[in-house]
């Protein structure tokens, strides 16, 4: 088991290195020159060369990449002479726009994104699984058919539509809730929830629909397994058959998808954040792309890759706990 975990973590590091190299390569190949932007209107060739030196862009590419990696692991000093700045661990470089370490920017924004993702995840799991399992148990009934029609509708509505509709109806017309802003959970838990409830519902609606469909088919498949018949033949009450014997197996594919979805969302719920104007990682990404703020784009790309791979590894480890067949082989 320990060896298994170790191999998975090693795999994670390898994936991150690859993503790192890939993003680095893409930016290196891009025609845009950050020095040119930083230089402004009254630019001279000397000034650009100066900036190149300061930004370390005069070094060979592999050297730049090594510096970048070194910075992530142990921090580094960027620039030379009087203009040198210390960028502490973990250093993802400096934002050209904000003139702050990328890491600090991401740390500022992460609680917002994490709050959106976590709250929505709880909602969509509860709703999606209950609808899916309920439907599976009454397969073919009127309830099943109407629930599945509803999920199909919900799954086909894009977040920018449902989000704007929710804002208009709930905030603008009914005035039930304030326009969402981010309030720190530590400062005011109630305000935190009040402000996030709309984004949660909007985001969860989409995912709950997909999870309902996924859990329904997974549950239907599991309930037709011979071992479910065995459980019934033992005289177990239907509740035990469905939950202990059925759900246990039916959850496996859901856990996989859930890990990936959560990882992806932590890398920035871009549309939701934009619609509700919440300052999360997704907003940071959009701003950085618009302003060609390379170090920030690289930083958020790595952060997203980190979360996705991390949750994939966590799911794998969870599998080993849940499924004895994985553990033994």
């Amino acid at each position: 088991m320990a060896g298994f975990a170790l191999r998975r973590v090693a795999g994670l590091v390898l994936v991150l290195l690859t993503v790192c190299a890939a993003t680095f390569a893409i930016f290196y190949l891009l025609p845009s020159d950050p020095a040119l932007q930083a230089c402004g209107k009254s630019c001279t060739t000397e000034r650009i060369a100066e900036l190149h030196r300061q930004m370390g862009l005069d070094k060979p590419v592999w050297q730049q990449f090594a510096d970048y990696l070194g910075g992530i692991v142990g921090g580094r000093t960027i620039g030379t002479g009087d203009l040198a700045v210390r960028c502490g661990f973990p250093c993802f470089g400096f934002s050209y726009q904000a003139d702050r370490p990328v890491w600090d920017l991401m740390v500022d924004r992460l609680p917002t994104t994490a709050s959106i993702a976590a709250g929505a995840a709880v909602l969509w799991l509860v709703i999606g699984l209950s609808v899916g399992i309920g439907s599976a148990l009454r397969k073919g009934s009127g309830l099943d058919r109407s629930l599945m029609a509803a999920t199909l509708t919900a799954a086909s509505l894009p977040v920018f539509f449902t989000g704007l509709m929710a804002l208009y109806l709930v905030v603008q017309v009914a005035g039930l809730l304030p326009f969402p802003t981010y309030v720190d959970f530590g400062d005011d838990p109630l305000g935190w929830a009040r402000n996030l409830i709309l984004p949660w519902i909007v985001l969860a609606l989409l995912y709950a629909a997909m999870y309902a469909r996924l859990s329904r088919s997974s549950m239907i498949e599991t309930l037709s397994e011979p071992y479910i018949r065995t459980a019934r033949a033992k005289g177990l009450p239907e509740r035990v058959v469905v939950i202990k014997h059925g759900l246990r197996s039916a959850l496996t594919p859901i856990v996989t998808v859930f890990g990936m979805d959560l990882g992806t969302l932590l890398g920035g719920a871009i549309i939701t954040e934009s619609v509700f104007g919440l300052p999360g990682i997704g907003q940071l990404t959009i701003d950085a792309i618009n302003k060609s703020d390379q170090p920030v784009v690289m930083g958020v790309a790595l952060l997203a890759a980190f979360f996705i791979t991390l949750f994939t590894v966590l799911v794998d480890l969870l599998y080993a706990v849940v499924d004895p067949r994985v553990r033994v082989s």
Partner: protein
Amino acid sequence: MSLLEVRDLRVTFTTGRGALRAVDGLSFTLDRGRTLSIVGESGSGKSVSSLAIMGLHRDAAVEGSIEVDGVQVVGAPADQVRRMRGRRMAMVFQDPLSSLHPAYAVGEQIAEAYRLHFGAGRRAARLRAAEVLGEVGIPDPKRRLAEYPHQFSGGMRQRVMIAMALACEPELLIADEPTTALDVTVQAQILELIARVQQDHGLAVLMITHDLGVVARAADEVLIMYAGAAVEHGPALTVFAEPRHPYTRGLLNCLPRLDGDAEAALIPIPGNPPSLLSPPDGCRFHPRCAERQERLPCAVSRPLLPQPGPAHRAACHLLEETR
């Protein structure tokens, strides 16, 4: 009184193409300590009948009467039948690997029924699980309680299934093709095991199988099913020695056997079993029957197994007892 009394059992499924009567008027009794084999090909209704006895049909209409030790199963409250399942009557299925839950240790799978039916604590249930595992011949049972189904071999898994069935000391054991998924050398072990536990506990065993060899080895009585109904019923010895129904004769003739004449061609039964959505009029076997006669109403009226009747009886217009 017999332990199991089935009278005029009918099981009907509703399909997209109409009603499908998988079992149409099945009657038999089974006493403690005896083995009855229900034999038939796929679609004959043998497995459907066994699931009906266990009350395991969820979307089929079950009619007629099934009494287990005097308690009616058909139409009884679901919870009452559930309490009998695993306790009074237990079942062993064909494929032990898919019939065991892959994610629970075998000890837990055996113990949970014992806890449920006897209100036993975890410790007592564990002890009971180890006890039955030992009884079915699994070495070092205490240690193996914590292992998972995939860690057992095919034959050992079927022993686990049998242990699970025995855990609550049932009186009726239904074995649905218990050796079909197993290798022939392992099949012999499992049949011996079932015979042994039957003797030790005085079980009534209902053995569902398509394999006449298994019947010859294990059964006291045989009931041959064709297209949802019994065509012949009697003591195993006489059914094999003097089969009365043309279908039974056909089955025995078309079967390759180790002691037969390998040079002679087999005599197959022509055609295919009928669709139960639109069974033929008259005797359901008559379109394939080599012995049908124009003077008899084979194509018109359906011969029924006489109830009651002689110990060895068949449902065929050729026979005195049916007419």
